């Protein structure tokens, strides 16, 4: 319990500094006022519209990335070394293709709408997912696979009963990383061109100099991120048991 004292301490410090005028309350409104604004936004319903559209965009981008990235990573990691060597450099090049660059290109083709934002999120999520699945698949102990084959398991059951469980931890690490990044990119995409969403709310409040609203929106994004991460952490602990003799060392929960 004592470990978590620092966060409330920080909030109290913020509150006192701002109220006492040590930092300018115009720029840094007290925490309590920001929370009150957040509550107002929630009560008036303004928050939920932005939140739900942001969540929808983030999750659909994430889902697309998982659909593409998991098989891609697993095939690259689980199969021949030569295939990996062939595709490693192109993947490195593609992963350098900045999502903001992509944003401009997708807008050209599909126009301003949901597509550029979701593409950007999916593109960003794709890499941690694919690389996670790849390193998971590469790490499967070949003895286990050989043992499975010796017991007469078919290719499908080797995949479902040996390879996937053995790689599960790293697959989930990649997915979790990607989930965090999905929100990350989405906020940027919504700042670059949107009329709804939490990122838009932040930028719009900043441009109209409603700083309390801006901080409230920032907090809402932070809470959404924490909630998604916690939910996912729970899910991964249910689905992927930790290997024996190892404690959970995941950050952020």
């Amino acid at each position, binding site marked *: 319990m004592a470990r978590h004292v620092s966060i409330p301490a920080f909030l109290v410090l913020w509150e006192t500094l701002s109220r006492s005028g040590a930092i300018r309350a115009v720029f840094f409104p007290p925490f309590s006022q920001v929370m009150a604004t957040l509550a107002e936004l929630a009560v008036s319903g303004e928050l939920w519209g932005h939140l739900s559209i942001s969540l929808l965009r983030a999750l659909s981008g994430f889902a697309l990335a998982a659909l593409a990235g998991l098989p891609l990573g697993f095939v690259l990691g689980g199969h021949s070394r030569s295939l990996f060597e062939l595709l490693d450099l192109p993947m490195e090049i593609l992963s350098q293709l900045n999502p*903001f660059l992509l944003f401009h290109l997708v807008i050209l083709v599909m126009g301003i709408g949901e597509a550029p934002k979701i593409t950007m999120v999916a593109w960003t999520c794709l890499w941690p997912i694919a690389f996670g699945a790849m*390193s998971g698949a590469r790490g499967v102990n070949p003895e286990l696979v050989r043992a499975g084959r010796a017991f007469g398991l078919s290719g499908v059951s080797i995949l479902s009963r040996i390879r996937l469980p053995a790689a599960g931890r790293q697959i989930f690490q990649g997915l979790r990383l990607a989930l*965090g990044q999905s929100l990350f990119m989405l906020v940027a995409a919504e700042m670059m061109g949107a009329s709804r969403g939490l990122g838009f709310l932040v930028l719009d409040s900043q441009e109209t100099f409603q700083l309390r609203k*801006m901080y409230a929106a920032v907090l809402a994004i932070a809470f959404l991120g924490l909630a998604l991460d916690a939910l996912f952490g729970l899910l991964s602990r249910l689905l992927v048991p930790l290997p024996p003799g*190892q404690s959970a060392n995941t950050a952020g929960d």
Partner: protein
Amino acid sequence: MTPAAASRTPPSKNIAPVALGGKATAQRGMRMTLPRRSPTRFLVPAAMLALWETLSRLGLLDPQFVPGLADSLAAALDMTRRAFLLTHAMVSLARVALALGLALLAGVPLAFSLGHAWPGAFRFLEPLLRVLGQINPYCLFPVFVVVFGLGEAAKISVLAWVALWPIFFGTLAGLGDLDPVLARAARGMGAGKASVFLKVAIPAASPSIFAGARTGVQMAFFILIAAEMTGATAGLGWLVHNAGAMFQVPRIYGAGLVIVALGLGLNRFLVFLDRGLFFWRASGPGQDGLPRPGPLALALALAAALIVLAIGLIGMARAESLLNDPSVVPEYRVWTE
């Protein structure tokens, strides 16, 4: 979670041999570094580029949306000759370097004092620091703009903030990995506290600091492009954004190719330094059996980097006059927003 979280999570014992020193090589998630010398690895990229050009020549790609590779490169060349493309690239690099410097100046001493000198304070502050490290930098950008105004300071402080956390947590991880036997051995041989710190703790942590800096640079470069798109007068992101605003499609692609190439080059440069500098490390780049760069190559590379940075800094200071330079053709000068 931010991309840096990958490098912050200590690699667990049974994953480490697979990821080949995961922490050190973790870039944008969990990549692996394997010896790669085989020329076949250039096959697929070359084929992709050839396919792009062929499809465009055959008229299968609408040149209004996807110009061919040759046209994109021609646009990049044209921008190089008439719109200071290289200067813009160096301005972008200089921003990243400034941010990296700030992040190192703040992050390394902070990590050393919390991890080495006052572990008690660190246990108290850790949850807060982890939460701060996970703040979305795009959310911070409006906050920094409110505080610093729409200038270089806001951009560079966001980048520095982004680079700070991988460096801070990387340094901490390096200190945590420090073999206590080494410190005791040094003390047994008569070293004082100061020289144990200088000759054992700092060298032991330096590969991790560097790994953190590498992640930080990559993330900063990523976010830089976005920051330059939303309000700058120079830099590669700005070039793309303006080309987009003016529907100069080949220019978007040309500048985009330069961004991708620069990102790759930056990464390779850092791996090169990593391989040359930290030769004693048991795993990570440089432990793949391939020859390591010698001191002369390292010195030359660093000198080249310094020259690029100097030009970038001058370009940054002169961004406005760069745009209004009489040698810039009017069609490029309209880029001023």
